[in-house]
């Protein structure tokens, strides 16, 4: 965190000194997010006041700086009485304040290439709501996956070259990425309301979680990727390769009498895949394919050697966007398949999700209702997210919504006691 802050400031200073005659602009938003738990123990989940700043500069001759800083204070950590007894001081501090640079990079736009260097969010893929090829930036999961990806993606310090070429009468894009700043997903702290459930332990056995080695800013931990994109015969196509770390750890187990020790283990993997989209009348067909080669997985054993492993997983997603009379309906289907599965592996051979998004708008897009449903067909759990947004003016937008979880356990069901309603009031400038 300290290193990142220093790098961000250094980038800003460099940008500033590089061209004092630069044209600087500042956009951003002030936003209040208030959420209240409706199930389990009814209580205030958050009362956040956010400041989102997007400084930009244009230095001329193709050089630009683009940045984004997000910070907030969550008063619920101090106001909500139950937090005093249910949450540790460290958890409260984790949620109370936040100040991070999300992006801070220099962009050089040439005739045939763009070069970006600095802290970036690099987004691949065509799916919404769930990530398959969008794996480059890890997520901050402090609020499970309820935050917008733009806010929950952790910006990584990286260099990216996008080279554009006219080959055979078609435009082709080649992307090259190097990331020295390898980092894993930030999970919600153990004991917090959005922490993932830990593996069940045998009766009479206590569970403890100990720290594990995380990938970080070391030459040996560096990540790299390449992509190709083009539009061929009406199809938007991409091929992608990424050599990096799986964002979430496998949990290595060690069972001693009366104690199960869990150690997070981060493992490298290769992701090879691609994406496609095309329009057919009122329908847009889109999808992604990704093979994770050497992906770290959890196994059923309780010794370090038998509790984790590596395998190849095949992942695919298909989505449709149907637009008619100002209504948009988008179903998606995700599948994950382990060709080398055996019964020592602690997940089903096939698993996945279906999702459905329905939205429309009224009053010339002032009023926008939307509902998103996600269903984990492997464990039967689900999440429903209705939302209503109203634009009072160019600057002020209000939103009301809910996050409702179903299922006794599983990916969504583990948060069954976290059903909540929320309101947002945003001022953009």
């Amino acid at each position, binding site marked *: 965190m300290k290193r990142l802050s220093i790098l961000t400031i250094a980038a800003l200073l460099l940008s500033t000194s590089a061209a004092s005659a630069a*044209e600087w602009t500042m*956009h*951003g*938003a002030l936003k209040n997010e208030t959420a209240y738990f409706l199930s389990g123990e009814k209580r205030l989940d958050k009362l956040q006041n956010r400041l989102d700043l997007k400084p*930009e500069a*244009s230095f001329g001759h193709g050089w*630009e700086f683009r940045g984004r800083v997000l910070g907030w204070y969550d008063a619920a950590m101090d106001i909500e009485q139950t937090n005093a007894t249910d949450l540790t001081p460290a958890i409260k501090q984790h949620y109370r304040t936040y100040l991070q640079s999300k992006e801070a990079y220099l*962009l050089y*736009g040439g005739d045939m290439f*763009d070069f970006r260097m600095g802290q970036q*969010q690099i*987004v691949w893929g*065509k799916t*919404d709501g769930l990530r398959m090829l969008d794996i480059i930036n890890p997520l901050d999961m402090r609020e499970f996956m309820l935050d*917008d*990806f*733009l806010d929950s993606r952790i910006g990584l310090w990286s260099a990216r070259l*996008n080279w*554009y070429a006219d080959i055979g009468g078609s*435009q082709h*894009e080649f992307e090259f990425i190097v990331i020295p700043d390898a980092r894993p997903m930030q999970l919600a702290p153990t004991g917090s309301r959005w922490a993932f459930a830990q593996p069940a332990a045998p009766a009479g056995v206590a569970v403890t979680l100990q720290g594990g080695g995380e990938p970080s800013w070391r030459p040996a931990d560096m990540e790299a990727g390449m992509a190709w*994109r083009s*539009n061929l015969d*009406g199809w*938007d196509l991409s091929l992608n390769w990424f050599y990096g770390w799986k964002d979430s750890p496998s949990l290595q187990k060690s069972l001693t009498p009366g104690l199960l020790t869990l150690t997070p283990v981060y493992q490298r993997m290769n992701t090879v895949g691609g994406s496609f*989209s*095309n*329009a057919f*009348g*009122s*329908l*847009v067909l*889109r999808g992604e394919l990704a093979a994770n080669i050497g992906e770290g997985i959890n196994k059923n054993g309780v010794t370090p050697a038998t509790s984790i492993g590596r395998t190849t997983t095949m992942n695919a997603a298909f989505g449709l*966007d149907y*637009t*008619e*009379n*100002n209504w948009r309906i988008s179903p998606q289907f995700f599948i994950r398949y382990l060709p080398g599965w055996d019964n020592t592996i602690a997940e089903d051979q096939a698993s996945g999700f279906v999702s459905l998004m329905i939205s429309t*708008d009224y*009053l*010339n*897009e*002032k009023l926008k209702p939307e509902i998103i449903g996600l269903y984990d067909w492997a464990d039967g759990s689900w999440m429903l997210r209705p939302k209503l947004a109203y*634009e009072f*003016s*160019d*600057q002020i*937008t209000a939103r009301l919504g809910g996050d409702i979880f179903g299922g006794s356990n599983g990916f969504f069901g583990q948060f069954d006691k976290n059903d909540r309603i929320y309101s947002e009031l945003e001022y*953009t*400038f």
Partner: protein
Amino acid sequence: MNKLTLMMLGATLLLAAPVCSAEPTGLQIMQMVDARDDGDDLIQHMQQRLIDRRGDVRAREMISFRKDYGRDSKSITYFLAPSNVRDTALLTWDYDGVAKEDDQWLYLPALKKVRRISASDRGDYFMGTDFTFEDIKQVPELEDYNWSLIGSETVDGHDMWLVEGEPKSDDLKKNLGYSKTRYTIRKDINMYVRVDFWDRKGQELKHLVSDEIKQIDGIWTAMRGSMTNIQSGHRTELEFSGQRYNTGLSDSTFSERMLKRGYRGE
């Protein structure tokens, strides 16, 4: 009426007949509108005001680029302000005729993604304006309508044709959202100055008025326009400025790359 008067009337009618038959058809007039010189490419700024029936105003600022490729064209429009739509951008590859559907992509900064969008539901309204995706094309697909010249009139000293277009099928009426359109076209420059639209049920829906038409680089250009929805009381006012024609825009201007990069000046 004396004999001389009758002879003169007869001669007038005889002379008038060939004049009437020389009047172009509705389709021919629309083809002339379509073929009007609007430059090989164009850059222009747009100020947009969305005004609801209570008078509440939302203002937007955009810049658009267009380039012709024979009878096809490509365009890209960037939203520059306000902040909540800034960097949203629409790329359209507009193919002439109805044999091939247009290609459209929308960049949504909140997702950091370029989305392929369907260009078939042309009756969908664009970004909260009173313009549908079909309306933001300069000239509709001529093959979609049966065109009829219904008359002529003089407005503000300019001779005008009145041309009505009726979608050729019920499916097209449903898709476009209109049962009829009426174009008021200046005869001297083959440019429409007003368009009236009727909804699918035949009720008058909205009208577009182009104002302050003048020549820029020798090309007739409307500097202002407004689309008023009579049924909802909502109005979209447009003001165009900074037009530059025939600057030789490169093909790469109309690409996914530029959608993602956004517009930060030239």
